[in-house]
């Protein structure tokens, strides 16, 4: 996003808001991973503790979800940069 027409006071205000939203965003990703990996990996309710199979699944699922999010973020960021460039050249 382009904050070039924000004065210093407005930029400081936005920075504080963005920091708070980053925290909430992180917590939301956390819950999303828990929900998705639980739903995919846990299907055996004859035991109370996670089986070793379930545990391995959760570990891989979490790691893959993060790497997936990072990759989506990288592509998304490239796309936004292209749009910005195109706007600046016109």
């Amino acid at each position, binding site marked *: 996003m382009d*904050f070039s*027409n924000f004065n210093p006071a407005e930029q400081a205000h936005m920075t504080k808001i963005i920091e708070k939203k980053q925290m909430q965003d992180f917590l939301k990703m956390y819950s999303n991973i828990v929900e998705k990996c639980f739903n995919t990996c846990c299907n055996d309710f004859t035991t109370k503790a996670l089986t070793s199979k379930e545990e391995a699944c959760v570990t891989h699922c979490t790691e893959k979800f993060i790497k997936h999010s990072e990759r989506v973020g990288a592509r*998304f960021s490239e796309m936004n940069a292209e749009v910005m460039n195109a706007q600046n050249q016109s």
Partner: protein
Amino acid sequence: MSFLGGRGGNPAPSGGVNLEKVEMAVTELDTITDFFNRMVQSCHSKCISTRYAEDDLNKGESVCVDRCVAKFNDVQKKVGEKLQSRGAANAGGGSAFGSL
């Protein structure tokens, strides 16, 4: 991706905070975040195998994610054009607020 229209007006002259401008920026931020999160979820469903036998995205998954992001973005543009051509005002007819 400034689909909320131009960010209204110049900076407040003497270093004050133009609350309306900040609020607009926050709405834009929330919209992009929501868009991003849905893209992550949709592309995860489309591309990531649920066997979870390894920690890394394999080659096929990686390529799929790249294309998925591009397509999701194209769909976002298509839908946006469609909504715009119908007129943002009109589209409000399908919301709860038209019905109260």
